[in-house]
C-alpha cells in the first residue's frame, strides 16, 4: 500500500521541480478534458501553451500581462515570507495608478524625460501610502492586515471611480468617466515596434533581480525569513517585528503602486474606472506558484500571462467555453498544491510482508 510520511528536510530540487510537474500534469489533464469535450486535445493545448510562444505579437502581449503580475508578486512574496499577509495589492495598485496618473494629468502640457521617472516615484509613493494604513493598524492596534488591506481595495476602487467621474475627468471627453489620454512624455516607451510591449517589463526584471539580492543576500531579507519561520528566534536575534511588518507592507505597496503606474502609463494610457482587472489578486497565485522565490515569480508571472493569452486565443479559434482560462489556472493551482503535499512528505510503498 502507499503511504505519506513527513520529511524532515524536503529536498531542494523537488521544491524547484514541483511547479514544473504541476504544469505537466495540468497539460495532461487538459488533454483528457478536451478529448471529453470532443475537441481536438492536441490542438487546444498547442494553442494555449505553445502557439503564443511562436508569435512576436503574442510574446509581446505576454510581457504586457506579466509585468504587473511580476512586480506585484515580487513584493507580496516578501511579506508572505515574513507572515505578513498583504491581500490588498489590488488597492495599492489603484492608489499607485492614481498617484502616478495625477502627476501625468497635472503636467499634461509639459514634456520631458524627467516626467516618467517622476510618475513612477509618485506611483510607488501612492502604493506605499495605501499600504501604510494596514501597517499602522497592525503595528499600533494589532489589527489583522488581511482584513484591513482587503477592505482598502474597495475603498481605492471607489476612490478611483469618484475621481474620474469628478476632478480627473477629461474636460474634452463628452462627460465619459475617463481621464484625459496621457501625452507622449507620460506614456512608457515601447520596446518592440508595432506591439504593446513596454519598458515596464524591464522594470519588472529589475525588480526581480533586486528582490533576489535582497532576500538571499541582504540582512533585511534574512530577518524577514527568520520572522516568518520562527518568530521566537527573530526575537532572540533582536529583529523588530514592527519594523519588519512596516518594511514588508511598504515594499509590496510600492511595487504594486509601480505596477499601477506602468499599467496606466502603458497599455491603458489614461485613468479609467476599469483599470483594476484583478492583477493584484492573481499576483497572489503567482507568488505561490513561484515558491515565493524571485526567479520562480518571474516564471510564474509569465506562465499566468500565458494562460491568459493562450486561453483567449484558444477560445476564439476553437470556440471553447469562456471558462477555459480560469479552469486552467485553477488546475494549475490544484496540481501545485497537490505536489506540495508530496514534496513535504514522501510516498512509500509498504509491502504487506512487513506484517509477517
Amino acid at each position, binding site marked *: 500500500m502507499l*503511504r505519506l*510520511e513527513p520529511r*524532515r*528536510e524536503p529536498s531542494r530540487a523537488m521544491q524547484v521541480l514541483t511547479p514544473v510537474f504541476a504544469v505537466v500534469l495540468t497539460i495532461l489533464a487538459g488533454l483528457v478534458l478536451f478529448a471529453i469535450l470532443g475537441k481536438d486535445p492536441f490542438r487546444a493545448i498547442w494553442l494555449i501553451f505553445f502557439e503564443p510562444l511562436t508569435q512576436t505579437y503574442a510574446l509581446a502581449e505576454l510581457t504586457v500581462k506579466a509585468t504587473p503580475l511580476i512586480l506585484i508578486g515580487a513584493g507580496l512574496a516578501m511579506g508572505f515570507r515574513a507572515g505578513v499577509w498583504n491581500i490588498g495589492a489590488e488597492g495599492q495598485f489603484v492608489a499607485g495608478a492614481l498617484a502616478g496618473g495625477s502627476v501625468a494629468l497635472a503636467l499634461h502640457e509639459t514634456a520631458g524625460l524627467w516626467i516618467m521617472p517622476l510618475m513612477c516615484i509618485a506611483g510607488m509613493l501612492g502604493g506605499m501610502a495605501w499600504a501604510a494604513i494596514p501597517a499602522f493598524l497592525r503595528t499600533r492596534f494589532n489589527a489583522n492586515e488581511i482584513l484591513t488591506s482587503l477592505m482598502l481595495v474597495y475603498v481605492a476602487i471607489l476612490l478611483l471611480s469618484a475621481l474620474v467621474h469628478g476632478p480627473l475627468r477629461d474636460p474634452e471627453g463628452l462627460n465619459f468617466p475617463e481621464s484625459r489620454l496621457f501625452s507622449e512624455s507620460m506614456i512608457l516607451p515601447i520596446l518592440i515596434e508595432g506591439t504593446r510591449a513596454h519598458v515596464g517589463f524591464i522594470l519588472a526584471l529589475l525588480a526581480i533581480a533586486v528582490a533576489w539580492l535582497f532576500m538571499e*543576500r*541582504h*540582512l*533585511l531579507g*534574512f530577518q524577514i*525569513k*527568520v520572522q516568518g*519561520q*520562527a518568530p*521566537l*528566534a527573530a*526575537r*532572540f*536575534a*533582536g529583529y*523588530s517585528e514592527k519594523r519588519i511588518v512596516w518594511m514588508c507592507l511598504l515594499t509590496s505597496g510600492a511595487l504594486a503602486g509601480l505596477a499601477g503606474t506602468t499599467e496606466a502609463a502603458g497599455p491603458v494610457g489614461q485613468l479609467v474606472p476599469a483599470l483594476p482587472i484583478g492583477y493584484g489578486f492573481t499576483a497572489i497565485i503567482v507568488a505561490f506558484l513561484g515558491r515565493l522565490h524571485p526567479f520562480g515569480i518571474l516564471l510564474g508571472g509569465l506562465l499566468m500571462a500565458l494562460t491568459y493569452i493562450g486561453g483567449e486565443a484558444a477560445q476564439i479559434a476553437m470556440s471553447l467555453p469562456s471558462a477555459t482560462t480560469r479552469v486552467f489556472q485553477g488546475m494549475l493551482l490544484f496540481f501545485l498544491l497537490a505536489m506540495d503535499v508530496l514534496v513535504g512528505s514522501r510516498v*512509500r510503498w*509498504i509491502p504487506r510482508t*512487513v*506484517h*509477517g
Partner: protein
Amino acid sequence: MPEPLLELDGITRAFPGVLANDDISFRVGEGEIHALLGENGAGKSTLVKIIYGVLRPDAGAMTLRGKPFAPHRPSEARAEGIGMIFQHFSLFEALTVAENIALGMAPELAKGDLRGRIVEVSTRYGLRLDPDLMVGDLSVGQRQRVEIVRCLLQDPQLIIMDEPTSVLTPQEVEVLFETLRRLAGEGCSILYISHKLEEIRVLCEHATILRGGRVVATCTPGEETARSLAEMMLGESLSPPATDRRTPGEVRLRLDGLSMASDTQFGTDLDDIGLEVRSGEIVGIAGVAGNGQTLLMSALIGEIRAERREAIQLDGRPVGHLPPHGRRKAGICFVPEERLGHAAVPDMSLTENVILSARMRKNLSRNSFLNLPRAARYAGDVVARFGVKTAGVDHAARSLSGGNLQKFVVGREIMQEPSVLVASQPTWGVDAGAAAFIQEALIQLAKDGTAVLVISQDLDELFAISDRIAVIANGRLSTADPVEELTIEQIGLRMGGQVRGRPDTLGAAEPAHA
C-alpha cells in the same frame, strides 16, 4: 524473563547520508523498565518513532504481544496501548492544558470530565498541573508535565519516554520514578531514553545500548557504574571533568534591582533581582521550572527591555535599554533553553543559523549584506570543535538529533568568546560525553576571563561547575553563595521558596538595591 510485550527484529531505517537504525533487535518484557542508551545521534529517537508509528522502518518487523505490529500512524500505536512522550513537545501554545490533552487523545477517551481526570491523575502522580492554563505561558518543565499526564490518561501498556527528566527537578524526578515503578508493578512496560546514567542505574532493569545505529551491548544497569555505561555508549574511556577553581576578577555582569512584569498572563514576575558575576567565575541559578527563569532569560537577552537601563550592567555600563544584538555587540552571548525554534530556526541551514546570533561578533555581514562563505566557515568551525554530528553545514537545523543541535547552539555562543555568557540548561539532552565536553568548554571560557551565568534545574550540574549558586523562587533571587558553603538540601529548601525574602546572611555578593 517476563513475557515479552514488544519484540523488534532487524529494524533498519536510513536517512539521506546516515543509517540511523541498522538491524536493531531486542525485546521489552511485560512490566519491565527498559533503557535505551546511546550517544547523541545514535538513533534512539528514530527507533522509538518507528515503534510509535511516526516513522516506518525500511526493513525489519515488530511483534506486540506475539502478534505482528506495524503501526502506520501514532493513533494506531495508541490504540494498541502505546503512549509516548517526545523529546521535542508537540503542544499548541494558544490552547489550554486541557484542550491540548484532549487533542492528543482518542475522541472516546477525551469525553466526559476530562478536567477532573487531569487534576486527579496529575495529583495522584504529583505532577502539579492546572488544566486551564495556556500552554504558551508554561515553562518547558511544565509543558513536559502536560505530555506526561496526557500519556498517563490513556492507560497505556507501554510508555515510551524520550528524555523525560532532563528538565525536572530532583524532587520531581523522584516522584516520576515512583510513578513509573508503580506503573511497572501494575504490568505496564516502559521504554526509557535518558542521558542521565545515574537515573538509568536506579530505575531500569535492562538496557540496550546503541552506537551509530546498531545495538552494541545489552546489560543490567544496576550492575554497572555510570562510568562503565558511558564507556559502553561511547566505545572509549572517559576522563573526569577538571574541577580546579579559578580566581574571580572584576565584576562583569551586574543585575541591580531588576524587576519586570511577566508578558504572559500566568507567568511569574521578576522581583528586584540583584546579582553580580565576575570575570573567571561561573554562577549557577537553580530553581524549579516556572519560577521566573524564562522571564529572567528574556530580560537578560533583551527580548523584553528593562525599565531602567541600570538594571543590567556590563562592565559597569548600563545595557538594560539595549536590544539583543546591541548586547551581543557589547559582549554578552546567550544560550536560551529551547533550542528548536528559539535558539535556532528549524528549517534554516546551520550556516544561516550562525548568522542569527553571531553576525555582530563574527563579522558575518558587511554593509548589511550577508557574508555567507564566512558564515559557513564559522558554522563549520563550531561543528568541528563541538563534534556536532551532521552531514554538512548546509543541512537544516531540524535534521540534527536533539543533542547535536544543543552542541551546535552552545558552541555557536561559546566560540564568540563573549565577556559574559548566559546559558539556560546548557547540557539539556546531550549525552554524557558531550555534556562533559560542554561543561569543560564553559569552565575553559571562565578561565579565559568570561563571566558565566548558568540557569539550570540540574543541581548536579550546577554543583559540578559553579563557583557560586543562587536560587530563584517565585521571581525572587537569593544571594549567590559559594558552593562549598551549600548543600543540596539547603538549595532544595530555597527552591521550595521556604526561605522568603533575601537571606543576606551568607552574602558573598552584596545584594544591590535600587
